[in-house]
């Protein structure tokens, strides 16, 4: 048995032809990354426009659309997302020390004039989709201080999101996509395998984030569930974010196996099961982590996502000749 497995492993890397890697990189860019960053930039632009009337119901709808667009590709935390801390400027979460409400309360309390000049210099805790959520939905922050200042703040956060996402789109379309397509001829990606690894790492890290952070934080322990730690619970998006994230990850997974779709069959089925269980949960903010019945259902989903990640690491990775590298969740 040991010998057979060894032979199989040695045989695998040569089974992955260079054109297969090229096809996978192209598919990931064309079907997932580039449409994703364009949609994010456009939805964010629409959010900034909608925020010009900060009392408008259209603002809330635009907020949800832009947040959806972000979550769908939020696992791509390298290159243009990592540069200038853009991913953090869009999404500072989890926030285990309550930095977001604290930072917003300070700005509002002081009517800090920074909003008129250089908002990108403020703490990331007061920027992006999670800060916007507090401004729109939190009962305390959304009613604090001077209404006119708060309205200005909503506008500046929205336009800051639009600026950041436009920069991401520009970086991807003008340079980074080409660096990946031309992997092997530049120093950033010294081989096609390196470009594949960056994408593969985004896939596995995205699943890890969903299982450990999006589900794991509110689950806490059986004796000490933490429903208040559910992501974006104030806007009722906790489960929606999971569903959209899983859909985005499924898209990436399909792209990476475009040259060998058979590899993706089990994985696709795994995504489908997890997504349909999330859709049937009927608990938008994961509040039921606190009751034994609901908790069990959520733990099952967490387990499915973990199994799916294992399947990808042990089946898809070796088939493609790539492994996950280090990720930002490696610390503690």
């Amino acid at each position, binding site marked *: 048995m040991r010998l057979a497995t060894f032979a199989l492993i040695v045989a695998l890397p040569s089974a992955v032809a260079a054109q297969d890697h090229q096809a996978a990189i192209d598919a990931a860019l064309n079907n997932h990354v580039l449409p994703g960053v364009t949609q994010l930039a456009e939805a964010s632009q629409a959010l900034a426009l909608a925020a010009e009337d900060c009392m408008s119901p259209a603002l809330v709808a635009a907020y949800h659309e832009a947040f959806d667009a972000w979550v769908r590709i939020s696992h791509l935390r390298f290159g243009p997302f990592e540069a200038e801390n853009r991913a953090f400027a869009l999404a500072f979460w989890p926030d285990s020390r309550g930095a977001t409400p604290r*930072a917003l309360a300070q700005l509002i309390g002081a009517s800090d004039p*920074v909003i008129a000049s250089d908002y990108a210099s403020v*703490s990331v805790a007061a920027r992006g989709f999670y800060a916007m959520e507090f401004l729109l939905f939190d009962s305390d922050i959304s009613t604090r201080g001077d209404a006119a200042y708060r309205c200005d703040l909503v506008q500046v956060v929205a336009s800051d999101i639009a600026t950041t996402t436009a920069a991401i789109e520009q970086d991807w379309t003008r340079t980074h996509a080409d660096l990946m397509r031309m992997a092997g001829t530049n120093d950033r990606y010294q081989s096609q395998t390196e470009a594949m690894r960056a994408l593969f790492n985004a896939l596995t890290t995205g699943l890890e984030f969903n299982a450990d952070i999006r589900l794991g934080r509110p689950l806490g322990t059986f004796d000490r569930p933490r429903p208040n730690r559910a992501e974006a619970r104030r806007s009722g998006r906790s489960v929606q974010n999971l569903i959209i994230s899983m859909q985005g990850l499924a898209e990436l997974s399909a792209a990476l196996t475009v040259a060998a779709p058979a590899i993706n069959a089990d994985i696709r089925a795994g995504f489908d099961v997890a997504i349909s269980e999330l859709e049937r949960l009927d608990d938008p903010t994961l509040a039921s982590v606190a009751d034994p019945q609901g908790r069990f259902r959520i733990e099952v989903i967490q387990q499915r996502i*973990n199994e799916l990640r294992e399947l990808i690491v042990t089946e898809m990775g070796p088939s493609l000749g790539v492994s996950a590298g280090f990720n930002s969740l490696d610390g503690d």
Partner: protein
Amino acid sequence: MKRTILTTTALATFFAGPAMAQEATDVLTTYANIAAAGYEDSLITAEALEEAVADLVANPSAEVLTAARAAWLAARVPYQQTEVYRFGNAIVDDWEGRVNAWPLDEGLIDYVDGGYGGPSDENELAALNVIANASFTLSGTEIDASIITPALLEETLHEADGIEANVATGYHAIEFLLWGQDLNGHGPGAGNRPWTDFAAGDACTGGNCDRRAEYLTAATELLVSDLEWMAAQWVEGGDARAAVMADPDAGISAMLTGMGSLSYGEVAGERMRLGVMLNDPEEEHSCFADNTHNDHYLDGLGVQNVYLGEYVRADGTVVSGPSLSDLVAATDPALDTEMRIRLSETMRELGQIVLAAEAGFAYDQMLERGNEAGEALIMGGVNGLIAQTQTIERIVVALGLDTIAFEGSDSLDNPSAVFE
């Protein structure tokens, strides 16, 4: 969030030939020797700290408090260089939270300034102040804290209520007791606890000086015994040494995992970038003592030590031997050169932070909103660490450690083990 890129039994062995296997074993011996020396140095310097603390408790004065602070700073020098052993070695990772947990809600331990706030949504015990309270309720149970013992700190208070910010033991708890809160915000200056916080009778400030002394003594005693334990794991016959020597593939993987995880997720991410992004002086790793610049530098140095197979001990003697660098050079000399250059570049960037801090530009000030020079300094270190992680990944591939399949993995066999 702790994990390893490679765990458990490998089915395929890269270092299969006898010569390669011998070379890998020699490299691992150097790795274990450096760990043994590093933890022994940490122990020796912690014992010196324990003596200094005993002095402070017996004869409190400004001079003796200063001497205890100096002993703490010295103890950090060898310890920080061992952090590179954390993520690759389960035995270290499982233990590390007892000695170097951070960040902490210091109001758990002692009095804090009014601006600190009370219990928070995340942590009901954030302002417990055990030094002032001889009994308190924890998750519905009445706790007798009339005597502050190592056992009380370790078993009851540390990570109480399952909250990681409830740090009751280790270097940073001791640091808080020696320096106190740094109330200078983004201004220069560290914590400024008066020596009279340890004074007897009417001279006592801050209340409960005897209990504060009891806490400091217990925490230091625990630190020494924890380091004693870890040092023993790395000597000949120790479990940690046996674990890395058991399989050359897994051992070399552990080295690279530790280097990459510390560089990227931990130091570049959690400790450096986050502080800059939040502009929060509380996001300093050694925020009470203002020693953060040295923490980062020594973490980086630890990574370089492991790669080059060389460690300068606290007494100036050198531990060295066959290195990972030799192993990489034998496979791909250009990649070895790339790794050496990246490590040197990172050390230069981290060194610039140290020099600026030593010259009076405190790490807190670098974190201030709109401080472009500070942000550039810190991001220089972050970018160096990110770049060196990319090269570490290349080494994993070049040594063939990424195509190894596993009989099982922690996450399949025991999902909770991976996500501790």
